[in-house]
């Protein structure tokens, strides 16, 4: 059985046999960087295609199906075209910040890939404050958006960036609360610990209704945090034409575009890790035979299928709901989500202290 | 109120003006200086209550321009057309936009296409054509050899 952890340990042992420790570390870091970049590009391509197919099927049409078999090369063609397009800096823009912004957004998205456990014993960096790391770093991406909006010298961009700032900072709180509730249940910030604590059942099921509420709040909050419809205030195509990336073209726009999808992947991966057991297979009580079959499916498949399910849910939101207005968006956060998640955290803490969870 | 009665009551209100029945609506021809007072009376008189200006336009008769106001009453559902003649060289008339807000855009359009100057209009500017456009295209003497290809 080909498992990802075997591959990584094979690479590590074979390198260690021939090279010194420092050079192994350097080589491995290079490999990881390359792998991360490849994953970044590959995930972007897949997710964009998935989005287009999902939207097409919801909208009773076929979606891309002519470029390559079943249209699978569609996003590859798009990316290639975007890379080859003329890239220019608009007149009056702050050249340095304008060029820097997409890289800030992209690099942050890539850094966030680090603590995610893609499979059993397979994470780039399983640091002991993994969840905290993610919440901390993901809020930095708003700086990239603000930078882009400011540097573009365009009112639409500026409005979009300001909206995005207000929105991401507000929704960080609820997302943090939702994450915190699982941390309270687990008692650890390390991703591998959180996953391990779900070996006898996912937190979504083990944590009673409060965990379910936390999950719903988490999904809503991260939809807002990644600027997805119905919370796509930063882009708001029908209001602000393109929002913060109105003035971006070609390659730089592609980076924003890809980073958006990578961010969705990351938040959904975290959601899957926290609430749906990460790479843990689905087990039902004492059904040994069933559990064995479930165990046979590689852990990476479990992780990815859970993540992609959550991504699908977020896409489903996008293609169903109208967009909120900016003040309603903040109202939703401060009047509904925040009080509920605070109260919910209290409940969860009670459950954790009393040990009421399964 | 029937059309006959309407004509009579309006005639009694404005004995100087001439009113007769047109193809569709009764037509009241007035002097341009009395426009605002006539509109005001028609709007405020409770038995008439012409509160809805549904069309305002202008016709170029070469010798003069005619402003045409189509009025409707949303309460009684009777209509009236008011006409007043303007001088072709320097057409000027009081703006009706303080009585009927809809007149604001209509008058800008008439200014644009006919060159009628509306006094006391809040912002009388060209609306459909560019600001540097020469002439008023719906005038009969308008000619544009560059843009207009005659069939």
């Amino acid at each position, binding site marked *: 059985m080909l498992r990802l952890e075997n591959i990584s340990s094979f690479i590590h042992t074979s390198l260690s046999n021939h090279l010194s420790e420092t050079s192994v570390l350097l080589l491995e870091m290079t490999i990881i960087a390359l792998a991360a970049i490849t994953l970044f590009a590959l995930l972007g391509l897949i997710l964009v295609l998935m989005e287009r197919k999902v939207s097409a099927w919801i909208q*009773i049409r076929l979606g891309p199906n002519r470029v390559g078999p079943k249209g699978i090369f569609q996003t590859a063609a798009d990316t290639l075209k975007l890379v080859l397009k003329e890239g220019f800096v608009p007149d*009056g823009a702050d050249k340095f910040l304008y060029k820097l912004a997409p890289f800030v957004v992209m690099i942050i998205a890539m850094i966030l890939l680090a603590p995610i456990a893609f499979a059993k014993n397979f994470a780039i960096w399983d640091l002991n404050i993994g969840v905290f790391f993610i919440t901390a770093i993901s809020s930095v991406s708003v700086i990239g958006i603000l930078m882009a909006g400011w540097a573009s010298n365009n009112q639409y961009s500026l*409005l979009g960036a300001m909206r995005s700032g207000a929105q991401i900072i507000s929704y960080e709180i609820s997302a943090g609360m939702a994450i915190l509730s699982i941390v309270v249940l687990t008692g650890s910030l390390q991703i591998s610990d959180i996953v391990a604590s779900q070996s006898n059942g996912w937190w979504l099921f083990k944590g009673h209704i409060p965990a379910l509420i936390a999950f719903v709040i988490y999904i809503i909050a991260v939809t807002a945090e990644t600027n997805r419809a*119905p919370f796509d205030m930063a882009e708001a195509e029908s209001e602000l034409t393109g929002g913060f990336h109105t003035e971006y073209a070609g390659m730089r726009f592609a980076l924003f575009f890809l980073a958006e999808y990578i961010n969705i992947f990351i938040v959904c991966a975290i959601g899957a890790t926290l609430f749906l057991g990460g790479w843990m297979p689905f087990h039902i009580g004492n059904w040994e035979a069933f559990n064995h079959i479930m165990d046979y499916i590689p852990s990476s498949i479990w992780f990815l299928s859970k993540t992609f399910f959550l991504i699908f849910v977020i896409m489903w939101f996008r293609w169903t709901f109208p967009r909120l207005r900016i003040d309603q968006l903040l109202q939703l956060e401060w009047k509904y989500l925040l009080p509920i998640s605070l109260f919910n955290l209290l409940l969860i803490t009670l459950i954790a202290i009393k040990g009421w969870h399964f | 109120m029937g059309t006959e009665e309407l004509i009579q009551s309006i005639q009694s209100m404005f004995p100087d003006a001439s009113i007769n029945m047109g*193809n569709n609506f009764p037509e009241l021809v007035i002097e341009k200086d009395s426009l605002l007072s006539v509109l005001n009376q028609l709007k405020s008189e409770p038995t008439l209550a012409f509160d809805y200006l549904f069309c305002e336009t202008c016709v170029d008769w070469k010798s003069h321009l005619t402003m*045409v106001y189509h009025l409707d009453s949303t309460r009684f559902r009777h209509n009236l057309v008011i006409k007043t003649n303007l001088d072709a060289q320097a057409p000027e008339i009081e703006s009706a936009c303080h009585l009927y*807000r809809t007149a604001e855009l209509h008058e800008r359009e008439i200014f644009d296409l006919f060159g009628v100057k509306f006094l006391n209009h809040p912002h009388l500017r060209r609306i459909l054509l560019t600001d540097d456009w020469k002439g008023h*295209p719906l005038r009969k003497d308008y000619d544009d050899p560059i843009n207009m290809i*005659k069939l």
Partner: protein
Amino acid sequence: MFEQVSTSENGELVINVGPQHPATHGVLHLLITLNGETVTKLEPNLGYIHRSIEKMCESLSYRQFIYTTSRMDYLSSHINNHACALTVESALQIEIPERAEYIRVIMSELTRMASHQLWWGAMAMDLGALSPFFYAFRERESINDIMEETCGARLTMNYFVPGGVMYDLHPNFVAKVKEFIVFFKSKIDEYDELLTGNIIFQNRMKNIGIISKEDAISYGCTGPTARGSGVSCDIRKIYPYSIYQKLDFDEVIEHGCDSFSRYQVRMKEMRQSLKIIEQLIDNIPKGEFQAKTKAVLKLPKGEFYTRVETARGELGVYIVSEGGTSPYRIKFRSPGFSNLSALEHMVKGHKIGDLVAIMGTLDLVIPDIDR
């Protein structure tokens, strides 16, 4: 994006919405002043699609000028053509065969439904919901198919001619319309399910873009825009033309004065249109579809005015004739032009997102405004 104007004197942001902007449904240009996200001033700038139709019609004959009006309010092209044909017919006192009248009314109501469907989809798109657009177009396509079979085109049909209609109905027409009625009745409930009841949608619509009854009349609003404010202004009811007198339908009036009322009016109007078609479709009388008219039409000297109810409101056709073969002056009183003038009144004090929503509920068709 047209040109960048930075800030006004007191530090408010001035931005140009349009002429190329997805929310303006065409080439309307709005100069808006923003205080934060709140619109403090709005100034429409028209004419980006002013095609001088009125001047052009002065050199076209009374048979020819009708086709240009299809391009004015292209979403209710049949109704525009109807207005022109009615003007010419009433001036020449042409008696139209009853069959033609029935066909005209059915076509007009189908057009009204198609227009409202497109409005529904486009408005949902303005609000950020993209799927309704596709569902709306599915129904619209079936109307287009019916139109294409009988009238020979999908959008700008030029089917109504002075004296009747251009061709007789296609043999499949009645069956297809009946099929459509059944189909659409099931789908219109989906519209409500998807959007009307949606909490986000309701919050975006209720108490937004308020215009009182008095203001609506003063601004000359017509159609669903005015009827959402409680003004009775359906020309089909108050000045009936064609065979609307004989039909049983309600004038939809809502008293909420806000965006949601305007939305409701249009949704209910679609059902009323269905009702009208249901009454007519089985009773289309046999006979001629076109009255005999002279080859060259000459209107008598005088002035003629016709008012009809398009999907957007009251369309007036004002023809001044000098007795020739073409009009001396023609004026189209377009519903959108007056409705647009009320936009500033509605939008002031609302957010920029509401501006988009309110424009959606006004259902502006820019070529209709600019002519």
